[in-house]
C-alpha cells in the first residue's frame, strides 16, 4: 500500500503539490501538507517555493555558465522550469513555453507533436505540449523524491510508489484527460487518478470545514463552483442529496472549456495603461510591458484591499542602469479598475444573455482558441441556462427545476487567486442574486474559508484519503456523452462531403470502471491504410443511450467536435484496405479516461482507440 496520497495541481500558470500520509493515525495537519518546491530563482541560485510557475525555458548552449542551471537532483539540467524560467523568459519570449496545458485541450492541433515554444527560432528544439506537461510533473516528482526518498532506506517513499491524484479542468474532454495521463506516465508517476479541479476545490473546503459541513450544506442544495485560474475558467454544479439519512454529493454538470483567466485580467489592465503611456509618447519594450503587467497586479490588489484608495501608483523600471529618471511612472485609478476589470470581466448582464462570438476569418493562424467574450458572467449565464434546459428535458433531472428558467445554485464556492479580491466575489454574487430574484429564487450563500491558491492541490490529496473510506465522496461519472462519427454510404459528389452521423458510445454520467457495449450494428473498421476518426461530445444531452444515432453531427447544435484521429490501424492478416466488421465497446477506466474498443465480430481482432491522437493495435 502507498504511504502517501499526493495531490498535484498541474495549473496553466502555477503548479503545486500537496500530500496526505495515509498511514498516520489522525487526519493531517493543515499547514504541513504542501511540498516546498526547489527551483531556480536566478542562475546558480535554487530556492524553495510553494508554487512552481508552469513555465519552461529552453536556453541556447551559450546562454549560461556550466552548473548555473543545476538542480539538487540534476547537476546537468539543460532547461529551466519555474520562477527563473518565467522571469528570464520575459526577456527572451521566443524560447519560453507557457500555457502548455491549454494546448492539451486544443482540438485544432496535435498535442503530441513538437509545437512549443510556438514562435521559437528554427534552431530551438521544440517540444510537444504533452512533453512539456511531463517535464513539469517530473520536476515535482524529483522535488518529492529529493525530500522524502533520497536514501536507499527511504526509497519505498519514492513518488513512483505513491498514489497520485492529478487534477484536470472539469471542462477537459476525454482526449485532453488522456493526454494528461500520458504526461504523468512519461514523468514516472505510476498510480494516477484524475480528478476535476472544481471537485478538488470542494474537497479542500470539505476538509477545512470538517464535521461542520453538514450544517453548512443540506440535501436539496446546489453548489456552484466558480474556479478562475490563471488561464481558464471552470464551472461545475454539485448537487447535495440524501440517501438513507446520509448526505451525498453529486457533480451534475460542468461548463465548457473557457480559455479566460486571471492572467487575462492583469493583461487587460496593462494594455489599458500602455495605451495611455503611448499617448504620452512613452514606449515600453516587451520586458517593460511584462513588468507593467506585474505592476498592475499589485496595484489591483492594493486597490481591492483598501476601498478608500482612489488610485495606486505603478513604476515601470528602466531597462538600463539609470533607474532614477528612466523609470516610467503611471497610476491605476479605481475608475479604470472598475471599468476594465469588474465591469469588463464581470458585467451585470441578464440571465438570458449569451457570450458573444465574433465571426472568424476564413484563414486563421493556428494558435490557442482564447475565449472571444471576456465576460465571465455571460459565460456563467449561458451555463446555468443551457444546463437548466438540458436537465428540464432529461427524464431524471438531478436537480429540482420546477417552474425555473435556469438551474438555481443555492451555494457558491470560489477558487483561484483572482478571488482574493473580495469585490470580484461580491460582483458575481450580486449578479447571481439578481438572476435568482427575478426567477423567484433565494439569494445564494458563499461557502467561505477556501485557500484560493493551494485548494486544488490540497483537495486532491484529501481526495486520496477519502478514497480510502473516509469522509464524503463526490460522485460524478462523465459530464458529457460521447459519440463517434460514422460516415453514411452515399454516392460521391465532387466538392461535397458525405454527412456524418454521430453514434453514442458513452452515455452521460458513465461511472469509472464501467463498460458500455454498443448494440450490434453493421459497422466496419478500415484497417491497413491511413484513415480518420471523428469524435463528438455533448455536455447537454443527458438522455442519449449507447447506440443512439444523431443525424448531421457536424452541424448539430448540442454537439462539439473533438480532435480527430488520423492513423493507420494494423491489418489483421489479409491484404491492406480491408474492411473488418466490428462491435464497439466503450470503457471508462478507473483512472478516469475513456477508451473505445473495436472488437472483431468473427475473430480475435481487438483495436483500442484512446480518444487522443495515439492509437494501439492489440492482438
Amino acid at each position, binding site marked *: 500500500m502507498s504511504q502517501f496520497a499526493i495531490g498535484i495541481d498541474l495549473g496553466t500558470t502555477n503548479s503545486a503539490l500537496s500530500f496526505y500520509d495515509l498511514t498516520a493515525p489522525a487526519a493531517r495537519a493543515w499547514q504541513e501538507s504542501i511540498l516546498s518546491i526547489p527551483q531556480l530563482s536566478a542562475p546558480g541560485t535554487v530556492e524553495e517555493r510553494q508554487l512552481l510557475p508552469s513555465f519552461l525555458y529552453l536556453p541556447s548552449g551559450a546562454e549560461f555558465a556550466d552548473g548555473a542551471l543545476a538542480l539538487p537532483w540534476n547537476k546537468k539540467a539543460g532547461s529551466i522550469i519555474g520562477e527563473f524560467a518565467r522571469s528570464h523568459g520575459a*526577456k527572451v519570449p521566443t524560447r519560453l513555453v507557457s500555457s502548455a496545458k491549454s494546448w492539451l485541450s486544443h482540438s485544432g492541433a496535435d498535442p503530441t507533436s513538437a509545437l512549443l515554444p510556438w514562435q521559437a527560432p528554427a534552431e530551438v528544439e521544440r517540444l510537444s505540449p504533452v512533453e512539456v506537461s511531463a517535464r513539469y510533473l517530473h520536476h515535482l516528482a524529483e522535488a518529492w523524491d529529493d525530500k522524502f526518498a533520497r536514501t536507499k532506506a527511504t526509497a519505498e517513499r519514492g513518488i513512483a510508489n505513491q498514489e497520485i491524484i492529478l487534477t484536470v479542468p472539469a471542462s477537459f474532454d476525454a482526449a485532453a484527460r488522456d493526454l494528461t495521463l500520458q504526461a504523468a506516465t512519461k514523468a514516472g508517476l505510476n498510480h494516477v487518478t484524475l480528478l476535476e479541479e472544481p471537485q478538488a476545490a470542494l474537497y479542500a473546503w470539505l476538509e477545512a470545514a470538517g464535521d461542520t459541513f453538514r450544517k453548512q450544506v443540506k440535501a436539496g442544495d446546489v453548489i456552484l463552483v466558480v474556479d478562475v485560474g490563471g488561464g481558464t475558467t471552470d464551472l461545475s454544479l454539485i448537487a447535495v442529496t440524501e440517501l438513507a439519512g446520509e448526505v451525498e454529493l453529486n457533480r451534475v454538470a460542468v461548463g465548457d472549456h473557457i480559455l479566460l483567466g486571471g492572467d487575462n485580467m492583469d493583461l487587460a489592465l496593462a494594455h489599458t495603461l500602455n495605451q495611455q503611456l503611448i499617448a504620452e509618447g512613452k514606449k515600453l519594450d516587451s520586458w517593460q510591458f511584462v513588468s507593467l503587467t506585474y505592476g498592475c497586479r499589485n496595484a489591483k490588489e492594493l486597490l481591492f484591499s483598501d476601498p478608500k484608495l482612489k488610485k495606486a501608483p505603478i513604476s515601470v*523600471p528602466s531597462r538600463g542602469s539609470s533607474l532614477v529618471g528612466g523609470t516610467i511612472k503611471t497610476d491605476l485609478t479605481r475608475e479604470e479598475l472598475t471599468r476594465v476589470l469588474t465591469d469588463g470581466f464581470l458585467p451585470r448582464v441578464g440571465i438570458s444573455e449569451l457570450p458573444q462570438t465574433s465571426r472568424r476569418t476564413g484563414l486563421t493562424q493556428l494558435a490557442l482558441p482564447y475565449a472571444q467574450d471576456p465576460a465571465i458572467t455571460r459565460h456563467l449565464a449561458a451555463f446555468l441556462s443551457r444546463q437548466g434546459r438540458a436537465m428540464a428535458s432529461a427524464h431524471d433531472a438531478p436537480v429540482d427545476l420546477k417552474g425555473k428558467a435556469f438551474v438555481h445554485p443555492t451555494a457558491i464556492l470560489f477558487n483561484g487567486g483572482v478571488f482574493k479580491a473580495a469585490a470580484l466575489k461580491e460582483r458575481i454574487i450580486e449578479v447571481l442574486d439578481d438572476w435568482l430574484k427575478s426567477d423567484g429564487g433565494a439569494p445564494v450563500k458563499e461557502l467561505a474559508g477556501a485557500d484560493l491558491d493551494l485548494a486544488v492541490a490540497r483537495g486532491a490529496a484529501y481526495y486520496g484519503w477519502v478514497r480510502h473510506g473516509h469522509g464524503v465522496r463526490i460522485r460524478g461519472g462523465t459530464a458529457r456523452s460521447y459519440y463517434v462519427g460514422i460516415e453514411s454510404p452515399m454516392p460521391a459528389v465532387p466538392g461535397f462531403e458525405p454527412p456524418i452521423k454521430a453514434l453514442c458510445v458513452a452515455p452521460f454520467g458513465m461511472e469509472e470502471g464501467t463498460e458500455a457495449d454498443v448494440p450490434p450494428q453493421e459497422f466496419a473498421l478500415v484497417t491497413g491504410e491511413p484513415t480518420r476518426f471523428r469524435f463528438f461530445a455533448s455536455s447537454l444531452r443527458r438522455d442519449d443511450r449507447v447506440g443512439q444515432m444523431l443525424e448531421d453531427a457536424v452541424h448539430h447544435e448540442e454537439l462539439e467536435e473533438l480532435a480527430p484521429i488520423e492513423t493507420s490501424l494494423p491489418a489483421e492478416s489479409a491484404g491492406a484496405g480491408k474492411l473488418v466488421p466490428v462491435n464497439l465497446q466503450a470503457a471508462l477506466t478507473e483512472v478516469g479516461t475513456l477508451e473505445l474498443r473495436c472488437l472483431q465480430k468473427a475473430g480475435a481482432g481487438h483495436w483500442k482507440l484512446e480518444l487522443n491522437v495515439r492509437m494501439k493495435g492489440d492482438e
Partner: protein
Amino acid sequence: MASNDNAGTVSFGKRLSLGLKMIFSGEFAAQAMAALQARESRPRTLAPEQVHASSLLLLNALQREGRLLDFLQQDVAGFSDEQVGAAARVVHTGCRKILQQYFEFEPAAKEAEGAQVDLPKGFDPQRWRLTGNVAGQPPFRGTLRHHGWVARQVRMPALAQTMDPRIIAPAEVELG
C-alpha cells in the same frame, strides 16, 4: 521573544561555565586550540568574495528584484523628488519582496516607541542600546526611542559553487 528582564543573564552564565571547562579538560583545550588554528588558517586561503559570498548573493537578489545597486550608484542630486520617488517605488517593492523571502524580522523591543522600559541588571547590551544621560548602574529606566530589529529567521539560498559571486548583475546584450 524580546524581554527586557534577564535576557542577558543566561548567556553570560553560559560563557562563564564554558571557560571553566577549558581549564579543567586538557583534551578539550587541545581540541579547541586545533579548531582555533584551523579557523585562523582558513581565511588566508579563501578570497574575500568567497568569505562574503552570501552578502554578494543578497546584493545580487536586491539588484535583480529591486534594482538597489542601480539606485544607490546613481547620483540623484539633479533629479526631481517625483523622479526619485518613482524609482524608489521600484526599489521598495522589489527589495521588500526579497527581504520577506529571505528573512523574518521582528522588533528587538516589544514595547511601543515612546513607552517607558525597564532594563534590569545583566541586560543584553547587544539588544539594548543606552542613549542620553548614561550614568550609574542598572537597573535602568528610560524611554524607548527605536524598537530595533532582529532577524528571527534566516532562509537565504546558497549560490552554486561553480558561480562567481562577484557578478552582482550581468551586462545585458539584446540580439537583433
